[in-house]
């Protein structure tokens, strides 16, 4: 029963993101896309609220969360009552649903559980739920150093939120976040892309995106870890900036960047890369700088908190030496370790679709993000004197965003094909 309440708790996170329906660009989206944006924004909102509660020593509780949920829903009420954009279910939607169910089957037969769920995301969430707040003493315990004490709290907070409602941590429930992230990412992409490239093309690409995300999740054993959320925020952030050039599109991207930056250190790098790539490829440095404000404030507040409790670790390694002489072996190991155990098929698919790009200008931004995330991954690995084990256990997961942006480049170019 508590597993069910935990899962329902995860679904109620949508309520905390309903305020985004006030944004014109979200208002225009179809219902699945609106719900997906609300779910993604809800994770950012509730984790930020839970962090704030911990800062002011307000204990997490069911009643606190119910009150916050009611307030969030009330604040969004005028937007909730307005009609969503038109959505006609297509055959590709059935395909996406089947893929999500296939992924859910793998998740619930324990075929793709991420070890990091057991080693740090889950323990942090379970402990925070037990003590009803973020516990700096727990994070500072030297025995738990490998839990990355200074990683931002988004994922543990999301799990702890559902666990507080269920009064118990549900390890099976945590795994559901992976198929939910796939559905939310795919629905957001399709909703954002459809006005630009047409319903049919958006549906086709959404189907392929679902298959790609599922394969990446299975090949990298990512369920329960933070990477499915990073992929979700990548898809939303890049799609919003590619397909919606209005202020509303940039507002959606800002929320996704906040989510990535508040999840883990690779997400912070991803947010920075997206902003830099946007500045370079659109030649709009002011608009790009505006994208950075909210993520910088959110992450900055967490890092200030972490510094106050002497938790800084991953975010304070800028002085570590770069082993640039290791570049060739690191590239070799990364290439060897990123096959997704299906002969590099996700890479092959993303590269195959790039062959059909006729206008590279539109594809430049997602391609730049893809290249940037790949370079950042290599840069991280080069800071370790012997990164072989690290690469073997993480390359497929952290390069998921790289593959997805390669794929999004071909979808972005589709727009020009229609416009031309």
């Amino acid at each position, binding site marked *: 029963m508590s597993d069910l309440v935990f899962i329902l708790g995860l679904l109620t996170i949508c309520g905390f993101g309903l305020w985004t329906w006030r944004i014109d660009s979200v208002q225009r989206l179809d219902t699945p896309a609106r719900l997906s944006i609300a779910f993604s924004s809800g994770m950012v909102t509730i984790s930020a609220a839970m962090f704030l509660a911990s800062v002011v020593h307000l204990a997490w509780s069911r009643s606190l969360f119910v009150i916050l949920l009611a307030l969030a829903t009330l604040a969004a009420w005028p937007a909730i009552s307005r009609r969503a954009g038109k959505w006609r279910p297509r055959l590709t939607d059935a395909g996406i649903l089947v893929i999500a169910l296939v992924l859910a089957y793998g998740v619930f037969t324990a075929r793709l559980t991420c070890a990091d769920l057991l080693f740090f995301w889950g323990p942090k969430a379970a402990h925070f739920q037990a003590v009803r707040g973020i516990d700096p003493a727990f994070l500072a315990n030297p025995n738990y150093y490998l839990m990355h004490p200074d990683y931002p709290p988004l994922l543990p907070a999301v799990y702890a939120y559902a666990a507080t409602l269920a009064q118990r941590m549900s390890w099976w429930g945590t795994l559901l976040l992976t198929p939910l992230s796939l559905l939310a990412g795919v629905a957001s992409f399709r909703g954002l892309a459809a006005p630009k490239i047409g319903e049919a093309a958006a549906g086709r*690409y959404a189907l392929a995106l679902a298959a790609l995300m599922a394969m990446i999740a299975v090949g990298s054993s990512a369920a329960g870890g933070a990477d499915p959320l990073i992929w979700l925020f990548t898809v939303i952030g890049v799609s919003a900036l590619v397909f919606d050039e209005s202020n509303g599109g940039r507002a959606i991207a800002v929320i996704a960047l906040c989510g990535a930056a508040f999840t883990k250190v690779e997400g912070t790098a991803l947010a920075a890369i997206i902003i830099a790539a946007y500045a370079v490829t659109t030649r709009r440095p002011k608009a790009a700088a505006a994208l950075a404000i909210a993520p910088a404030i959110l992450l900055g507040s967490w890092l200030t908190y972490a510094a106050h409790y002497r938790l800084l670790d991953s975010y304070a390694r800028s002085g570590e030496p770069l082993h640039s002489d290791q570049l060739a072996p690191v590239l070799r190991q990364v290439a060897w370790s990123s096959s997704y155990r299906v002969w590099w098929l996700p890479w092959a698919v993303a590269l195959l679709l790039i062959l059909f790009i006729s206008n590279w200008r539109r594809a430049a931004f997602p391609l730049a993000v893809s290249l940037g995330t790949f370079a950042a991954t290599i840069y991280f690995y080069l800071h370790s004197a012997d990164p072989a084990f690290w690469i073997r256990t993480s390359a497929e997961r952290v390069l998921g965003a790289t593959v997805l942006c390669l794929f999004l480049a071909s979808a972005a170019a589709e727009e020009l094909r229609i416009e031309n």
Partner: protein
Amino acid sequence: MSSLRSRAAIGAIYAASSILVASVVYRYHVTGGLYVERPASVMDHSGPDRVAIRDALVLMDRVAPLIPRRATVTCFRPKDGDPWPDTGLLLTAAGRFARQSVLDSSSARRVTPCPEVAEYVVAIAEPFTNPCYAEVARYPEGALYRRR
């Protein structure tokens, strides 16, 4: 873009989707059964050490209700009857025993005076022979010990 190229692109998208889904199913096949039964733990099909991790998870879930809140507890796979450090088990135990206080395996060493050792020991698979402890419950995956 020519109509032919456009059709080829559409065909490539559908073909790629089909191949990716087939690959997912292939990966499920490679990881093997159980196909319809509910797994005993969330790690049953994951990673090369899955049997060891599975046993630890199953045992921790079984003994967690037997350990009082705020009690000190440690978890390890004993070697020759003694504690053996295992960071993975320590971190996993921190999540499974969130209402207790998890200590590292050195808290159950034979050289430590009995009043100072951890109150509970979860010993995976192998017997634990420190005389400061008495066995409370035994399962196929290991046993729970309490300080005498």
